[in-house]
């Protein structure tokens, strides 16, 4: 029996999250009913909006009868998320240990990614709480699914076996599909979920086919075996049939995850899904999924195909990643420019950021910049996560107002936010600045480490293209700031009253992290550099 219980310690975050999910699900059974007004003013309005915005479904207004009180579930979920985060952080600096006979590993890299995932889960739960409460749409399943998907993220970051990767991928994807379709407000959520689902499963099928070919070439789905095969190939000691299979498989595997990380031309789903999903979910997706997907991509490319011949050789994958990076940076920024819906703009911008992260991946290909690239990637993921969760937190506050008044999501609904809600406005501007990569914010430091690694890896042209496209980025990020600060507020309240506490907490947290990483990046730098040791040297 080659299973050692201490392996479970290695996947502690995932375990905690799964248990937490179960607990929350259980809590649905023991609900205490209270009078609606105890749940805040928003109910009636939400009910009305909800009624009018649900054509096709049986739309009867909310019953005035006592409704169950679910207010604690968010905090419960947050508590578990925090526990998982703590578990991940507590393992920093532990030695890297293979788990479950090499099916997974517990190393610094995975821990950082897990920390990012749990952190974004924690903050997203807080954001979601006030969002859902305001719309009277709280259900335990929401948090449970979120935690499941976070668990999937933690697992996928640790997986070193293509099958495990596939399974964890499905875990996180399936729960996210559901979360996208969670709200019943009009056509958009369900449609978003459908598109996400179709394309997602399409991509995972492709990935799986790649896995199958890899299995064919190596007789195993372990990345370690793949790596051995690659090494043999490099030394020309392998069977003639192996090479093409490996090449085909790496192509398909990259394709599968290029989809998840939203690299052009696998990006088409991103804007629609981000747009249709509820803002807190979108934030969670943008931060967590990106982190997990990039972690896996890197895991496959480095642990599996990391050998120099396969990476930077004449048929190496670096050229390909560079190509993807170029496309992604250019297209992402270009398409974000004409957007007037902040949510959609952020969606396209997340594509653009995928491009910058791909630059880091490309710089990991060559030995001398692999460590820098890894730490750069992790740092960027963390900074981007903190920023984007916060940004979508603010979006959520605006959106729940729109969800009631049925207005379209447009920049004009942001005009003059700073007059009534200076703190929100300041936070949003801070996040925009950070996304644009202007100091003193996390986003800037992220760009610093990533592009530095690119220069280090001799990818100067790529870096130049990156910074130039980031100028275009600055343009559309600034436009939000312009509306928030420089346009007068139209009549009426920009933000629906009440239910701001937890979201405010989350946003403030994000803002603090963004500033902290921007002004004192040292600690994070240390962590990521330690994690970078996961890949050799």
């Amino acid at each position, binding site marked *: 029996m080659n299973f050692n219980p201490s392996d479970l310690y290695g996947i502690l975050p995932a375990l905690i999250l799964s248990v937490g999910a179960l607990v929350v699900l259980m809590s649905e059974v023991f609900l205490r009913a209270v009078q609606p007004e105890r749940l805040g003013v928003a109910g009636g309005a939400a009910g009305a909006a909800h009624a009018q915005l649900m054509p096709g479904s049986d739309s009867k207004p909310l019953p005035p009868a006592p409704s169950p009180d679910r207010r604690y579930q968010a905090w419960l979920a947050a508590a578990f998320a925090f526990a998982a985060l703590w578990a991940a952080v507590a393992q920093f600096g532990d030695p890297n240990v293979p788990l479950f006979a090499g099916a997974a590993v517990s190393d610094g890299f995975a821990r950082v990614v897990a920390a990012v995932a749990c952190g974004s889960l924690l903050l997203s739960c807080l954001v979601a709480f006030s969002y859902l409460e305001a719309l009277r749409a709280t259900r335990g*399943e929401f948090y449970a699914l979120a935690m499941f998907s976070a668990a999937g993220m933690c697992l996928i970051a640790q997986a070193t076996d293509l099958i495990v990767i596939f*399974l964890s991928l499905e*875990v996180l994807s399936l729960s996210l599909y559901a979360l996208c379709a969670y709200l019943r407000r009009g056509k958009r959520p369900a449609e978003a979920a459908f598109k996400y689902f179709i394309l997602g499963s399409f991509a995972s099928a492709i990935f799986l086919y790649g896995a199958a070919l890899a299995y064919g070439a190596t007789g195993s789905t372990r990345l370690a075996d793949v790596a051995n095969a690659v090494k043999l190939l490099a030394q020309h000691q392998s069977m003639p049939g192996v090479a093409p*299979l490996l090449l085909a498989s790496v192509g398909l595997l990259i394709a599968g995850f290029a989809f998840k990380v939203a690299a052009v031309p696998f990006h088409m789903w991103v804007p629609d899904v981000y747009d249709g999903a509820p803002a807190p979910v979108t934030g969670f997706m943008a931060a967590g999924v990106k982190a997990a997907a990039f972690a896996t991509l890197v895991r496959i490319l480095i642990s599996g195909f990391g050998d120099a011949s396969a990476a930077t050789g004449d048929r190496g994958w670096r050229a390909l990643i560079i190509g993807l990076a170029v496309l992604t940076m250019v297209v992402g920024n270009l398409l974000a420019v004409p957007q007037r819906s902040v949510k959609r703009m952020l969606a396209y911008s997340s594509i653009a950021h995928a491009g910058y992260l791909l630059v880091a991946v490309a710089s990991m290909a060559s030995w001398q910049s692999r460590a820098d690239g890894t730490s750069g990637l992790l740092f960027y993921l963390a900074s981007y996560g903190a920023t984007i969760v916060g940004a979508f937190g603010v979006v959520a506050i605006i959106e729940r107002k729109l969800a009631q008044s049925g207005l379209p999501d447009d920049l004009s609904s942001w005009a003059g936010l700073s007059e009534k809600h200076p703190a929100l406005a300041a936070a949003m501007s801070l996040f925009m600045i950070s996304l644009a990569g202007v100091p003193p914010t996390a986003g800037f430091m992220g760009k610093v480490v990533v592009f530095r690694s690119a220069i280090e890896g001799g990818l100067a042209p790529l870096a130049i293209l990156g910074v130039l496209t980031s100028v275009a980025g600055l343009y559309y990020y600034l436009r939000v700031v312009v509306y928030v600060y420089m346009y007068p507020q139209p009549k009426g309240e920009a933000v629906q009253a009440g239910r701001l506490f937890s979201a405010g907490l989350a946003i403030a947290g994000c803002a603090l992290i963004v500033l902290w990483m921007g002004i004192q990046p040292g600690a994070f730098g240390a962590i990521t550099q330690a994690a970078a040791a996961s890949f050799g040297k």
Partner: protein
Amino acid sequence: MMEAVLFYIFAIGVIAAGAQVVLRRNPIYGALSLVGCFFFLAGIYLLLAAHLIAILQIMIYAGAVMVLFVFVIMLLNLKDEELGEQRMTAMKVVGIIAVLATTGVIAWRALGAAYPNGPQVDNALRISGFGTVREVGRVLYLSSVLPFEVTSLLLLVAVVAAVVVAKGKI
């Protein structure tokens, strides 16, 4: 000899049924031909000495999954006109070409070249009890604990997700 005949029969069956799935306008026919396809596939699996898998194929796919499909199709009971006409767009043509090209290249370059001079090893003959429940079970429960556990998690997620999504209103 026998194997060859069977293979070709099953293979033709698989492809024909698969084609039906893709071509049939009415989903119910699609579903039924998919069931057929799965049966032929099970046959192929048997030829590959994957006894357990063949059984699972029949039970889970042709059984559970397809029932679910048919059930949903009935639930929605789409009128014929609601199905609408299949239209072709330029992008779809491009997609077809891309798909065919991809699989073609893989089949020709990778799969075709996989065994330069025929398969040297045939585990079905080499390993005793290859593909039997006992042997596969060993692998499942001993050397792939993690995937197995994750699968359980996956199924739970699926249940919850399906419930949440299918719920009337939230």
